[in-house]
Structures are given as C-alpha cells and as structure tokens.
C-alpha cells in the first residue's frame, strides 16, 4: 500500500472518537464572543476511524529503529534498555491523574517519591540538593548557568562574564551559556584529547565565571587532571559546572562533588534508563552544593516530621525554569529503575558500561582508527576507517550499518575528531550483540575496499534511500498544505 500522510487518508464522515451524553443546553458563541473571531474556515483535519489511526501510527512505529528492536550505540545518548516495569510504574493513576493545583495533602505520595529520588541523586553525586524542574539536559544546563550568573551578580562580581568550554563539549554547553548571557571561551583539547591544563591556566582569570565540563569527556576519556583543573578555576574565583550527559560510568565509582564540581545536571533519560521517546521527553534535574544550592530553581521538596511539602522559601533562587514541577513520568521511571538497581546495581552499571566500550574498542581497532590510545570509559571514538585509501567515509559506514539492522553511532562528533564515529554500547548489551556488531563493522570495512560503491550508496534495505538534505533546506516543505488552499 502506498505510504500516505494521515491527512491524505481522510474519508468525510468517519470518526474515531466518542463523546459522553450531551444533556447540557447549548450556548452560542455570538452571545458572548466577537462574531468576527469565530472560525469560518475549515481546519482540514482528517476524518478517520480508530482503526485507521491505529494502523497509520503502528506502521510508522515499525519504520523506526529503536532500542526495543535494534542495537543503538548512539554515542553520548546512552541508549540503554528501557525496563518495561518503569512504564507500568508511571501508568499509576495516582500519578497520571494529579493536578498541579491540588493541595499538598492530596499529593503526599508524589512529593515523597521526589523527596526519595532526590536523596538517591544526592548520594550518587555528592550534591546537596536537586531541583526537578528542568525538562531536559539543556534546560538543566541553562538553569545552572543562570544560577552562576545570579551568584556572581549578587556578589557584585560583575566582571565574571566568561564561561570556558572545551572544544570537545556538547553543543548545548556553549548554547546554554550564551542563553544565560555569558561569553563563551573555547579551550582547545590537547593532543591526547584532554583539556590542556596550561591553556586553562592562561585563559582562566578574574573574568571566568565557570568551567563547563563533562567527565569522562566526549572522547570517552577521563579528565585525569580534573582536580588540578578545579583548583585552577576555584583559585581564580570561578565555579565548576558538570554536564551530566556522561554520568553513567561514574555511578558508585566517583562522586561529582569529589571531582570539585559545584553544580551539575543529570540526564535521567540517559543514565537512569527512562525512554528517549523519539527525541523526548527527558529529565534534567539540576543539583548544587555549598552556597550555590540557594540559587536552585523553585520549588524544592521539603519534609517536616512526616509531611512533605513544596519549598518556596529560597530568596536567592533563580525562579522557575518551566511551569509546575518537571516531567513527572520521567521521574517516576527513573526512581523505579533506581529501586531495582540499588547500590550494587549502580556500580555494576558503571563497570559493564566501561567493559562493553573497551571490548568494542579492542574488537574494532584493527579496522577503525581509535581517536586516542588511552583506555576509554563508557564510549569509544574512532576517526573513521583505518584504511585511508578508500573513499568510503564515516557517513557511508553509518548508512551501511542500517542495512545490517544496527542504528548508527553518533557521527562527526566530537567535532575535534575527523570522521568521528562515537560508539556507546551501554551496559545492557550482551557479548553476543557486541560480537555481532564487531562482525558487521569488520564486514563493512572489507566492503569499503572490495565494493565501495555498495557502501557509498547504502542503505539499500530501508523504505527510502539517502535523502537529499540540500533540497530539503533549499526548498523547505515543512508541513502538509490542504489541496484547496
């Protein structure tokens, strides 16, 4: 059957929805609202049966690669298995049917869950408090940057306008810092892929508000001199922000506070296994310690005796970063996951995430060029094929992987590695899967020599071939337009 947009499946007169009995008198728009505002145009929404709708979307779902179906080693995104129990937990009507304007006495269980979740996050990271408001990692970063901004403003330290980010950082770091009104200073990575300490000493000074860092970094390397870096920044009066995107391999191994960080966010959808939802929702709780915690977004969760409450008495808070209290189902799922793991489970997560990445590094290094020689942590980055004589690029390898049923790794990131292939297997993948993947990668490396055209034209097995991105951007078609319009 030809693929169609949902709008093209319209059959006038069909319906997929039922209303309860209509026994309330009808009121007329014109009696209360301006007649000229009343819609005269059709909306052009399709009319469909329930089965039409279910089939349309089920077919779309089938066209996606997903963790449930495919190995999905998308670096920096921690695409681990999303336990089904978590979905069940979040379905509880005691959570889904709560209104944000209900009184505190009616939402004690909700508050207790967040209170307990905060305690766990505090224990894992060494921060003192978390705010659950930020809806995603980038929102957590923005909150953190705004906190830092306000912190210095309050000390009348107006000079501190700069945030230092490594050139290997996630794009959200400089974007968030800019949004908060900072000037971004990029620091080059050293030859071995780490922050250049000498360069940091030179750049860091009385204008430095913060250093924003993820550790292990996006090359999958641990910044071993993190303590020296913290000292340099702190000595100059600056602060350290931890981008929690790569928290997974640190669980139970090292605390964020022990590395000298003052403030951080956690990506619940990465480290704590909540599903990525085709691009969201995420959860980006922001945490802080020391003086900084007074600046966290409102509200926090408090407890007195055995009653839980929303804490608004934080005069230094930056305020709200979204309406109400955050992406609640994400919090429930993350909490369910943490209950299952417990202290020993968390440690095993970190260990096996690192084991899997190093195993892949070892299995792939004969065919792909490791970006560095150092032992990696949760992810491994290759600078494309080892054999540089073929014209097959990382882009082609990614596309060819799709034919083998594997979701491609992150490609061309970090920006500092040419032809980067960034592979994060996560701990939930078995040795068999990794071996199969290594076999596929080896096969593609061979194809790149024996039959490069096959790789360059991949994928061959998908509903569509390589799509013309230039055309999409030159003549943007961004929506369906009704035929008559």
């Amino acid at each position, binding site marked *: 059957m030809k693929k169609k*947009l949902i709008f093209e499946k319209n059959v006038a007169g069909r319906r997929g929805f039922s*209303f309860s009995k209509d026994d*309330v008198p009808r009121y007329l728009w014109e009696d209360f609202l301006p007649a000229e505002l009343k819609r005269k145009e059709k909306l052009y929404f399709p009319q469909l049966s329930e089965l039409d709708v279910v089939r349309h979307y089920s077919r779309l779902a089938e*066209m996606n690669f997903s963790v449930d179906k495919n190995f999905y080693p998308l670096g920096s995104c921690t695409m681990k298995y999303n336990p089904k129990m978590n979905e069940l937990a979040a379905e509880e009507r005691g959570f889904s049917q*709560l209104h944000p304007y209900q009184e505190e006495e009616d939402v004690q269980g909700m508050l207790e869950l967040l209170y307990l979740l905060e305690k766990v996050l505090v224990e894992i990271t060494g921060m003192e408090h978390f705010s659950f408001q930020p809806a995603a990692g*980038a929102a957590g970063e923005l909150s953190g940057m705004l906190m830092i901004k306000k912190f210095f403003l309050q000390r009348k330290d107006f000079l501190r306008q700069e945030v230092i980010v490594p050139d290997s950082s996630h794009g959200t770091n400089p974007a968030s810092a800019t949004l908060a009104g900072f000037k971004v200073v990029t620091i080059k990575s050293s030859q071995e892929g780490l922050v250049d300490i000498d360069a940091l000493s030179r750049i860091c000074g009385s204008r430095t508000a913060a250093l924003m860092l993820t550790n292990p970094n996006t090359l999958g390397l641990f910044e071993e001199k993190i303590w020296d870096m913290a000292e340099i920044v702190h000595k100059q009066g600056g602060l350290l922000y931890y981008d929690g995107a790569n928290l997974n391999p640190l669980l139970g191994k090292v605390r964020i506070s022990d590395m000298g960080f003052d403030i951080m966010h956690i990506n619940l*959808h990465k480290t704590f296994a909540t599903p990525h939802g085709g691009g969201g929702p995420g959860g980006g709780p922001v945490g802080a310690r020391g003086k900084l915690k007074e600046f966290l977004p409102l509200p926090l969760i408090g407890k007195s005796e055995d009653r839980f409450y929303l804490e608004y008495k934080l005069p230094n808070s930056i305020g709200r970063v979204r309406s109400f209290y955050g992406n609640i189902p994400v919090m429930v799922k993350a909490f369910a996951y943490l209950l299952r793991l417990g202290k020993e489970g968390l440690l095993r997560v970190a260990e096996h995430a690192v084991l899997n990445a190093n195993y892949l590094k070892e299995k792939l290094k004969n065919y792909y060029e490791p970006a560095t020689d150092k032992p990696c942590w949760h992810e491994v980055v290759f600078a494309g094929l080892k054999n540089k004589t073929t014209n097959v690029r990382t882009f082609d390898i990614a596309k060819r992987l799709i034919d083998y049923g594997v979701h491609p790794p992150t490609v061309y990131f970090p920006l500092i590695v040419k032809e980067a292939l960034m592979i994060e297997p996560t701990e*939930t993948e078995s040795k068999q899967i990794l071996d199969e993947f290594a076999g596929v990668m080896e096969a593609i490396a061979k194809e790149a020599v024996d039959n490069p055209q096959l790789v360059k034209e991949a*994928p061959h097995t998908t509903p*569509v071939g390589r799509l013309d991105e230039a055309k999409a951007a030159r003549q943007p078609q961004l929506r369906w337009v009704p035929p008559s319009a």
Partner: protein
Amino acid sequence: MPYIPHTPKERQEMLETIGKKSLCQLFETLPVDLRLRKELNLDRGLSEKEALDFIKQLAAKNKNLDAYNSFLGGGVYPHFVPAALKAILQQGGFYTSYTPYQAEASQGTLQAIYEYQSYICLLTGMDVTSASLYDGASAVAESILMARRINKRKKVLLGRSLHPEYRQVVKTYTAGIEIDIEELKWDKEGKILLPELEMNLNDDVSAVVVALPNFFGLVEDIKTITTLAHKHNALVIVVANPLFLSLVQPLSYYEVDIVCGEGQILGQRAYWGGETFGFIATRQEFLRKIPGRIVGRTTDKKGEEGFVLTLQAREQHIRREKATSNICSNQSLNALACSVYLSLLGEQGIKALAERIFSRAHYLYEQLVSKKLVQEVFGSHFWGEFVVKIPHLEQVGKEMKKHRILAGVKLGKLYPQLENCLLVFVDGDKSKKDLDSFVQTLEKLI
C-alpha cells in the same frame, strides 16, 4: 544484576580480550584519591514486584482526580485520553527511539513530526513550526527571545493576565540578557488594559505578548492589540490554547507574528502538570529564527519521498554558542500524542469538543450567577474557564472538597487583589449532573 546480561564466563572472556584482570582495572585512569572508597549509602536492589509494590504504595498516598468531580484548570486541563492513543504511544518503535538523526532508520518518527507540524500550522494558521518545546511557559520565553533576534529591540510588554508561572519563567529565562519585561494591567473585563498598552508602545518594543484566552479564560481583543503593536513595528506573540483555536479564525488573519502555547489540552494526561509539550509557530519569513528541530520533506535519488531533519544549521549541535536555542531533547512523544489525539478527533470532533467545553462552562456560570451563589468578577467573555468571587472561599472550598468537588483554582495566592476569587474550568465530558451537583452543593453551603 538487573538489566545486565553478562554471565561471569562472558565477563571473563571480555576482560581477557581487553587484557585486564578485573573490572576494577578498567578504571585505572581514575585518580586514586578521587575514588569512592565506600559503598553508596543506598538500599540493596529490589525485585520487580517489590519495586512496583513500593511505587504503587506511593501512588496510593495521592488523592487523584478519579476521586473527585474536578473543576481545576489554570493551564492544566485534565480530560479523557482515548485507549488507542495510549496503545500507540506504548509501541517500542516510538518510545524507545531517539531524535531521528539517521533519517533512513527513523522515517516513522520523522513522518509523525511532519504531521505534527502540519497540525500545529493548521490550528494556528501560521506557516511554520518546530518539532516541540518543553511546555507552554518555556515556549513563551523562547518566543520572546526569538522576537529579540528578529528586531533586536529590548522591551517586551505582556499582560499580567498571562499565566503567573509563564511570567515567572520568562523572568528566569531573560535574567541574564539585556531585555526589559513590562507587565500590563487588566481592565474591568479582565483583559489587557488597552490605553495602557497604547501608552507603553513605542519603537523600542520588541514584542507584545497576549494570551488567548488569558489566564482568567477571557478572550482578548487580538485585532486591536495587533493593530496597535504593528504601528510601532513591534511583533505580536499570541499564547494560545490550541483547543480554543479550533473555534477561532486562523491567527494569520490578524497578522499575528508568533503563536506559541501549551499543548497539554490535546491528549496529554495531567501528571501534576508534568509531561506536556510547548509549541511555537510563525510566518515563513521568520523560519530561520525559530528554535527547535524541524522536519522537512524531500526525496531520495530514486525520487521516493521521505523526511529529514532540516535547517539544522540553526541548532546547538552545529552552531554552538550562536544557535537559535539551546534545546536538544524536546517533548517528541508528547507531540506524537497530540497528533494521534487530533487524528482521532478529526475535523468535527475537535470543534465539537471545544464547543462542548464552551457550552458547559457557560451553563455552569449562568447557573451560579443567576442563583446569586457567586459574584461576577470579569463578566462572561470567556470560552471554557471563568472567574467568580465567593465570600469565604477558603472555607467553602474545603467544604466542597468534603463533598468530593474540587471547585477550581483559588486565585488569591497568585494575585492578592483577587482574594476569594475562583477560576473554574469545565471539561467537555462533564454531564449536566456533574455541573448541577457543583451548583447544589454550593447552594447548601451558602
């Protein structure tokens, strides 16, 4: 260990392949003095049943809306969500995938976003939109930042009748940059005080923000506001309730520049205000200023039609500090829920639903006013939500709750001048009995 498939034998083989003796050796680049030397002070892991039981017990401590005849609204509008929608969202192909960076392996998500973009454009009457933002509040903040990118002006006027939490979020988002937010009073009908707007408008004003309906449920005079703002080339940002828009002429007819808002009312469960989505739509000319991911339609070499993420050069992963926004993860699954919901409702369904809300709200309002159970505050230029004044509201509210009625949002805490005022939302599935019981209960109490 939960969710870790390695057998001891496999673990050993893998370690041997790497050339390590133990898992601990994998962490040799972790400086010794940073290592955590003790176990985390957490409980042992639970079985699936234990964990679920624990969570169920927490959920049971909440008094959820099932127990009440609820009239709570104020930005979050609980409503029935069809079973088919839930079933679709629970498909692994949707919820366990990520951002469709690899188009050929993500045509499902891409087409779904394209259809979502189409729905938002049809509802708002605007030309272009993006793949979703976090929520209504951040969508307003992003709209203000977008307006500033377009005209480089530094003053924003917004009604105090905009959702209080949205105004707080706008303040937070703009704290670090040079931008002045000025709040406008409301008139006796609860709408933006037009003479004040006119007085404050000048060539420094980047944008005027107006909610439709506003926080009090009242329908603002979009036409006049747009005319006034455009005289000074200020942009107009309408913060719209998308369900209400199904009854309203396309906003492009009023030359509105940006339409944004909260999508909760379109198929999202209440979740304590928790998991919704925000949207932002604008005219073609501002396409490259819009925040968030955008999906476009194109072709492959064989001419087969397909979908890709496009105009990515605006985004943080490419443009870093010069991006139009820092947003990366958005609320994709919630945007999907919106599309499914609208597909189930269809052309007739959505209008019928919006009209049912309108009739029910006006019926209840009329009953309350004609029986003199409440005092009128702003009048009746509302769609689905209205404000009334009830002496001793605190006490009355408590009594109503004892009768299993959540009468509405008390406005006194949000606006001190609206002490004893109640914001009442009436869902489209309410029966006459539900509404009459509100009236009769109040009658007994007063």
